[in-house]
């Protein structure tokens, strides 16, 4: 007896989001879990974790921010290979402000966020008309180029970097500041992408000619998305500068560009929640594998390959699809 899996879409009216959500526990769990788990989890975890894992959690939140920033750009049709640019520019702005003029962190971080957003947007403005791989190539090259510029001209401490930043008041402030901002970005921008404004952004990715044909200036909207994404990245960089009390060339490292992409691929693009989920899985995994020494990157790579083969669409869209479709096994007709 051969059987096949039959998938039936749930009726549109029968989806959650309405009073209907109260009809069953499954609906209620589906609605509340993706909201409650990250909020409660991120708020409680710092209290129970030791100092070392608290630092790991901090870097989870930072990479989640970078992944969210990457996802927003990707939703607007700009596949970036250079999140390190945003991270690095934010880091250097706050570093310079604090090192040369002694601006306290709680002023320098917001300045770096906004200024970083503006500077990165201006840097990428000329290539906004490029699409697909051409845009990606430019975003990848700019951070690598900036490293060489800093090395050659010896500005901002050259290869030594700038040291002696003012640390944030305590490790609790560090971790909760980043987590708070990350949760606000996650839920805020998720809501934004679902609004009419977000539809326009997603429309640009899908079919930019059609959006132009609706009388909308796609370059202006792309600029706005770029500013949002680069501000998020610059914020992450600015905070990390004050956490490490150091800023140097490593802030433009390829890690900051590639890791967010891996996180989005694992978690699933387009949802922002997927990006966060990916960061939550990958960063601790990378830490846990440290015991293997040099083999760490091999195991890490194997995990990524297995993952992309098993759930190519990403965890979060996978769960969404499972919810939106009834599945059952039916006999195949002869």
């Amino acid at each position, binding site marked *: 007896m051969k059987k096949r899996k039959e998938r039936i879409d749930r009726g549109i009216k029968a989806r959650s989001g309405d009073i209907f959500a109260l009809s069953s526990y499954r609906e209620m769990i589906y609605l509340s879990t993706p909201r409650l788990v990250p909020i409660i989890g991120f708020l409680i975890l710092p209290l129970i974790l030791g100092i070392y894992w608290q630092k790991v959690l901090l870097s989870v939140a930072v990479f989640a921010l970078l992944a969210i920033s990457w996802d927003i750009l990707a939703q607007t049709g700009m596949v970036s290979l250079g999140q390190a640019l945003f991270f690095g520019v934010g880091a250097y702005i706050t570093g310079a402000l604090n090192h040369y003029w002694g601006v306290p962190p709680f002023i320098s971080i917001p300045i770096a966020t906004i200024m970083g957003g503006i500077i990165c947007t201006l840097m990428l403005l000329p290539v906004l008309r490029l699409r697909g791989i051409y845009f990606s190539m430019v975003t990848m090259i700019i951070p690598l180029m900036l490293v060489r510029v800093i090395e050659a001209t010896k500005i901002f401490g050259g290869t030594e970097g700038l040291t002696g930043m003012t640390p944030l008041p305590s490790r609790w402030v560090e971790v909760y500041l980043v987590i708070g901002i990350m949760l606000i970005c996650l839920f805020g921008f998720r809501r934004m992408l679902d*609004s*009419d*404004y977000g539809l326009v952004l997603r429309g640009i990715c*899908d079919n930019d000619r*059609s959006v*132009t044909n*609706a*009388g*909308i*200036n796609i370059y202006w909207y792309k600029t706005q998305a770029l500013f949002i994404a680069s501000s998020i990245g610059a914020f992450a960089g600015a905070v990390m500068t004050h956490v490490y009390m150091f800023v140097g060339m490593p802030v433009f490292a390829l890690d900051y560009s590639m890791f967010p992409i891996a996180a989005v691929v694992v978690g699933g693009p387009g949802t922002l929640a997927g990006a966060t989920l990916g960061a939550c899985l990958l960063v601790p995994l990378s830490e846990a594998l440290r015991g293997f020494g040099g083999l760490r990157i091999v195991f890490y790579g194997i995990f990524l390959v297995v993952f992309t083969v098993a759930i190519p669409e990403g965890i979060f869209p996978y769960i969404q699809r499972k919810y939106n479709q009834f599945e059952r096994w039916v006999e195949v007709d002869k």
Partner: protein
Amino acid sequence: MNQVKILEAIKINKNFGGVQAVKNISFEVNKGELLGVIGPNGSGKTTLVNLITQFVRLSSGSIKFKGKKIDHLPPHKIIGLGISRTFQMVRPFYKLPAYKNMIIPLYSPRARSLLGGKYGDRDAMALDLLEEVGFERDSFVAYKPAGVLPQGYLKRLELAKAISLQPDLMILDELFSGLSLAEVASIVPIVEKLLQKGISIIMIEHRLKELFKIADRVIVLNYGEKIADGVAQDVMESEAVKNAYLGTEA
């Protein structure tokens, strides 16, 4: 009768490398008129539309809309002035439900200033507009992802998107292509209703029979040149048009 010209093209040219897609074409569209544009394949009809909306830049010549030159403006500005078009190849946002497809034109500066609407209102506006073009309100068609809709509905969606911009001039690029006779018959009244509202229409079409029933005037293109201009029946009688469509006797 003194007609008001809404669109005027004066000696427009377009070269793609060595190919001259549009040669020295001049024509005008009067207010409230339906102008048909016909011609064999590759005669430059779609290029003409792309030139009007500036998706493709003119090589020379000028285009005036309501008496103002528009050939230096970017496409989104031109559409903001009140020209909207449909595409021959329908490419909706496949994953989004049909009515969400309408949100993007409704969010454009022109639609927002003319129709207003806050976040949330636009869903209702979208459903109203879709009903106008024949998405039955009681059914789920409007809520289905655009990717699963049949061609007939996709063409209607494309039309609704163009209507939602509240245009003064609509350019319909092969609206009837790929549709059955019954579907065409159900779309024709929608087009006629638009004409009654005072919207001028340029209609590019291969289905001459259906077009001639509603067109006030027709221009014929062949190899990028305008070879005839006038009332439908007269145009089809002319020697040049017969040659273009049927070939010359050897």
